[in-house]
């Protein structure tokens, strides 16, 4: 599942036709790189504790509900 999500990751922007004028760096490449740098910087912050706590609480609530069901 997650394997095919990344399939176009490197190609999406790069595959677009780019106008590269002589003597200039490709502006699209620079935009794509900065976009990814920005995005990756947020991703690398990891998962804040509040979400791990929340998931744990949800999980616990679900288990409690199930054990009540079984009785």
């Amino acid at each position, binding site marked *: 599942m997650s394997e095919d999500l990344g399939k176009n990751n490197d190609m999406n922007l790069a595959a677009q036709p780019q106008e590269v004028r002589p003597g200039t760096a490709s502006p699209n490449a620079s*935009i*794509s790189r900065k976009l990814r740098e920005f*995005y990756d*910087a947020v991703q690398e912050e990891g998962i804040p504790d509040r979400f791990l706590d929340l998931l744990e609480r949800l999980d616990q609530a679900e288990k409690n509900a199930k054990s009540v069901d079984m009785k």
Partner: protein
Amino acid sequence: MSNEADTDDRIFKRDLLSSLPNLRAFAVSLTGRHDKADDLVQDTIMKAWANQKSFTAGTNMRAWLFTILRNEFYSQMRKRGREVQDTDGLFSERFSVHPEQYGRLDLQDFRKALDKLPDDQREAIVLVGAAGFAYEEAAEICGCAVGTIKSRVSRARTRLQELLGVSGESDYGPDAGDAAITARAFGS
């Protein structure tokens, strides 16, 4: 509960967890602020959890989560009304909050430029260019045609080039909003 359902359950939780950093980065891209983004992610987790039965195991969990988050974002925005109509004012206020979070100066500039894009263009370029979705998946998440996504991405790219290529007001940091207003007042 059958073993199969139990396994699906575990997979659901595992995939939800592993999608969170990406989902959160998308939320930051949409809202422009970490605190609002985290509230949005929290609401998304609750919704996803409550609707886990409606998720078909084996299908694209990440696209499903992104769709929930995006719907939640727009529905909250509609409820509140646009908090600030004046986008220049919104922009300078948003970025005075956590400028240090974007670290390097050129990334701050990029973030500011990204925030100046119309919502539909911003989400399109972020989904396709950073979050790792194919055009088709992005179209599904946004509920529009693939061609629409392509043209939004293309317009977003052009606009970002204009905003970043001309080494403009964003180089002047906190006064960027003022500089934009000044530029407009004295510009054509």
